[in-house]
């Protein structure tokens, strides 16, 4: 079972996971902070339009995500979260950087337990990690919905 999980994780996300796991636990928060600073702005068509995006209810801070799938089936993920929510921004940034550029099939195959695998559960707390799990689940559901159209 563990082997299947490893096999299905795209290289981009595996690299991010390894980056975290290489660090001692206290330093992982700093890396998450760096990710939060790197969260790219959303494209102009979504800027200021949270109604076009999906609110991630599992996160206590307002965070919105939207997934685009182009004609070749390549996914790009966008996320909006306020500066006052750096942890949520960090989670979103990990997924945006790890998911954008993957095929829809690769996104759908991302193991649901990816957020638990990056070594942050203790430093951040299981409850907060649940926010990232919700974000990933909603991202996959959006991709699935776009493929069905």
């Amino acid at each position, binding site marked *: 079972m563990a082997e299947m999980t490893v096999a299905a994780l795209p290289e981009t996300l595996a690299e991010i996971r390894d980056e975290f796991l290489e660090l001692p636990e206290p330093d992982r*928060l*700093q890396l*998450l*902070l760096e990710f*939060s600073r790197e969260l790219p702005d959303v494209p102009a068509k979504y800027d200021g339009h949270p109604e076009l995006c999906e609110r991630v*209810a*599992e996160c*206590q*801070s307002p965070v919105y995500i939207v997934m685009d799938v182009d004609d070749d089936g390549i996914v790009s993920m966008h996320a909006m979260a306020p*500066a*006052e*929510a*750096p*942890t*949520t921004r*960090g989670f979103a940034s990990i997924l945006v950087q790890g998911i954008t550029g993957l095929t829809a099939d690769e996104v759908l195959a991302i193991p649901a337990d990816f957020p638990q695998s990056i070594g942050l559960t*203790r*430093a*951040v*707390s299981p*409850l*907060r990690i*649940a926010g990232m*799990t*919700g974000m990933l*689940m909603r991202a996959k*559901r959006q991709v699935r919905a776009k493929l069905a159209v």
Partner: protein
Amino acid sequence: MSVETDTSSAKFAEYSEPGRLVTGEWLEARLGAPGLVVVESDEDVLLYETGHIPGAVKVDWHTELNDPVVRDYVDGAGFADLLGRKGISRDDTVVIYGDKNNWWAAYALWVFSLFGHEDVRLLDGGRDKWIAEGRPITTDAPAPSPTDYPVVERDDTVLRAYKDDVLAHLGKPLIDVRSPEEYDGSRTSAPAYPEEGALRAGHIPTAQSVPWARAVASDGGFKSRAELEAIYRGEAGLTEGDSIVAYCRIGERSSHTWFVLKHLLGFQDVRNYDGSWTEWGSAVRVPIATGPTPGELPSR
């Protein structure tokens, strides 16, 4: 060693314990004073790292105040170790502030109170008001000198309510501080969405709905005593001598209301039910009411 209380605010003077709050102006003038430790406690575990009040130490409730295994707070030894590392002495004045109008700051204050740390105050308006007022923020990490904080066992009998305490309390005032949708039970999870941490929706029968944010003024600080009296005594019907239990989802928003009832309005017997809806809404055979009204006291 403690520092004098903030007597500069006419608003504070009206509260039953004016010394439980400080203004930004008061705090800024005393940063670094002996006997004063400033603590930031946020919902977001990284917010402190993006900038904090100079010299303030961080206390995170998830990773530092909670026991890592059992759903409970740290014990006396754990609390002594934590406060020792943060450079806090037993008789220090602790001023706590945080994000979200001091939700988590009030939560930390409540936990400090369970251990009987006497002089613990809130910065009125919390982190947002401090920043809005243009007061100093730094990312420089403080290097507190460790202290020898004594091991004091937690007293859960006075300020904290367990589920069985709440069952025995039914018939006396309960304040539900969650959103109206959580209170009436209409908020449910869509299929395939993660459930919200409770198996049933609704509220504890007879609980009055007073969402926590009603205690907050437009500047992010607490409302005046007269405004608070109108809400909690006028609308919710609390009266002198009442024994009151406040609850929310996990006990953090209700700490905010607990602080209002206990320290600003002076009710003597106020307990926070930290198990809150995530416990009650999943417990077997406890009574639950739905809809916008408090509902009937269940017959036993």
